[in-house]
């Protein structure tokens, strides 16, 4: 390529960037940078046909209190426009939304589709924004968790950092919508607004604390455009995590000891009779864990035995929930049928709910942080 042509390409590329300046003439809603109020967290709830949109701008760079607003309307875009009307000076800017919180009322029926449609049609929103399902109302999470020094975005940020430290990112709207459409279900991160009994979070005194609550299964019935949510228990969530990904950094308790799972691996296989019939599912799991805090007089062997028993329980509870729901959100079918004997034919949907599932866990206690260990 000649130098002249290269220069021409650079010139055209540079000139095209300037075309963004047309926005002022073409878009009546143009605002200067200093009048933009970037929205960082969006919460969505529903009451009948009404959508409630809550937004939080996050704490400003100068420590200014976050702007928190809520509006109800027949649609999300209308609610966003209503919020904008209430803020004539500043333009609410949705291009850098970090989290979308869905209250449980926003998941039922076809409401999740309305969220997807809004994000797709809004040029500012992104499909890879993390999506978190809230047990209760998202509005309460957005506006109620306004403490003295922190807000919902910071709390969600800390939740995300913890998750990232465990080698796992937050599920995004793109992943959730894709899985829901493709497979009829999606595993989402669940959060709840109040701490478990027995815990004493000081933040709760200033408002509402938003804390992780395992996983939620969003599912859509075959042939119907409606979805519902199943909240998985902590044990089921842990079992689902072990079965669907490599778990690293998760903190668990086994017996009286606190452990950190350093590495996990799962192998799923089918049990086949001589005539090629599927008679069961066998889950083999290997765990390496570190001791965070040893409980009582437990030695490594005792901790290992307790962990193996607990982990087997998590796996079986998750599988049992999947079977009870008739929804293979653990991906057992693909794993079992991948190694099916030649000529085997399985009507998975029919046999899955009653298929015997067994699990065997081999745990190993690796490096620990407990000086007494």
């Amino acid at each position, binding site marked *: 390529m000649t130098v002249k*042509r290269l220069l021409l390409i650079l010139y*055209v*590329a540079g000139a095209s960037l300037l075309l963004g300046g047309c*926005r002022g003439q073409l878009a009546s809603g143009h605002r200067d940078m200093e009048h933009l109020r970037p929205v960082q967290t969006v919460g969505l709830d529903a009451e009948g046909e009404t959508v409630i949109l809550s937004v939080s701008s996050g704490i400003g760079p100068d420590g200014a209190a976050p702007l928190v607003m809520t509006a109800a309307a027949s649609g999300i875009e209308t609610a966003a426009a209503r919020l904008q009307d209430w803020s004539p000076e500043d333009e609410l800017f949705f291009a850098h939304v970090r989290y979308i919180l869905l209250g449980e009322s926003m998941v039922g029926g076809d409401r999740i589709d309305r969220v997807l449609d809004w994000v797709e049609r809004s*040029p500012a929103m992104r499909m890879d924004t993390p999506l978190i399902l809230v047990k209760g109302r998202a509005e309460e999470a957005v506006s109620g968790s306004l403490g003295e020094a922190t807000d919902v975005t910071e709390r969600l940020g800390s939740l995300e950092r913890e998750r990232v430290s465990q080698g796992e990112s937050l599920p995004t709207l793109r992943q959730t919508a894709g899985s829901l459409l493709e497979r009829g279900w999606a595993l989402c991160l669940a959060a709840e607004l109040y701490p478990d009994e027995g815990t004493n979070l000081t933040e709760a005194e200033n408002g509402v604390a938003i804390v992780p609550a395992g996983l939620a299964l969003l599912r859509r019935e075959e042939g119907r455009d409606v979805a519902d949510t199943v909240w998985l228990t902590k044990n089921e969530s842990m079992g689902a995590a072990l079965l669907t990904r490599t778990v690293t950094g998760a903190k668990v308790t086994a017996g009286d000891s606190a452990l950190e799972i350093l590495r996990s691996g799962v192998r799923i296989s089918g049990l086949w009779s001589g005539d090629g019939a599927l008679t069961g599912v066998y889950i083999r799991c290997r765990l390496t864990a570190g001791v965070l805090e040893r409980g009582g007089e437990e030695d490594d062997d005792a901790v290992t035995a307790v962990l193996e028993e607990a982990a087997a329980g998590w796996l079986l509870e998750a599988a049992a929930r999947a079977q009870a729901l008739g929804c293979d959100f653990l991906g057992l079918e693909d794993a079992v049928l991948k190694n099916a004997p030649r000529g085997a034919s399985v009507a998975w949907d029919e046999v899955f709910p009653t298929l015997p599932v067994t699990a065997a866990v081999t745990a190993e206690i690796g490096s620990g942080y407990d000086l007494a260990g």
Partner: protein
Amino acid sequence: MTKDDHLTERQFAAAVFTALLSPMMRVLPRATAILAGKWAWLSVLPAVPVLLALAALMASLRRSMAPGEGSAQLFLRVFGRVLGRVLLAVYAAWFLFYAGFILRSGADRLTATVYPHGGPGPFVAVMLGLSLLAALGTLRAAGRTAAVFRGLLLAVLAAVFLLSVPNMEPENLLPLRLGDSRGVLAGALPIVTVGGAAGLFSFLRGYTPPAGRDAMRLLIPPLALFTAAAAALDIVTVGAFGAKLTARLSYPFFTMIRDLSVAGTAQRFEAAVIVLWVFADFTMCTLLLRCGHEALRAVFSLPGAEEGGRTLLQMKNGRWLLWAEAAAAGACALLLPSAAESFRPWMESLVPLAMDLAVFGGFPLLWLVGRLRKKL
């Protein structure tokens, strides 16, 4: 026709590829995902033999063209002066309608993705004005410009594909089950329709050097580039969204760009990428105006557009036709339904069907009748 009027083979290929990027982004990821599901990214495989067959047909027609002749002259030679003129008038009408459709769909893409408060009017007017200016100039200039645009758009495509890899999820592409493979043939249809549109530009073959025996060989590299781009587009889009979500989005490729980030330090550059696709629309419109002019020139037995002089406002020798064509294309763009729900059937059914008729109906018929009447 002067030497300046001529396009080199490389410039012609660059212009055609750049023009095809416009319908490719509008049609492909969504249409192939609807028809082929998870197999969408393999739909390019059955499309290749069909496009090769079309390329062989177009090469055969090209070998029958005398120097300075394009498809318009072949239509007159094969079908006679009456039927030939009728067919050329139909082709001219299609070129102008399709130019209007490209203007309008380009404007819709911008209003749907970057300028939600803008109407299509300003975008249509600006693009039409630029395309008319280019059409009034020499094809050589248009070809050289297209070569620059092709390099730029290919670089952007490569960067977007590379940055999209982290967003891809293997389970969206694999495993594939044979039971679901029936759609893969149907998924090839939109690829064939978009790629086949290149055949229309044979109306401009009078401006490229004769190819003789090399006619087919010269078509292979552009065809390979087109199929590679189409396959990459389907792989990254379906890989990121899954087939069903891709099928549900209006502009999956441009929606995907919103999610891109350069190592977490730079993001939200979709507006720049989307605006760059104006270059593809511009090239497509310019070529369509010139193709329409070639068809009408043959109908009215007028000299070439570049034989009337270079002055912009020079109207003699049929150059006024280019202004009339631009007005007709602009009118088509503004008369198309304004509501997205009404415009969608035009994008998804009527226009692809008409394109298939123009390419896979018209050119095989031309070749067949020409052979039977020993005119080729």
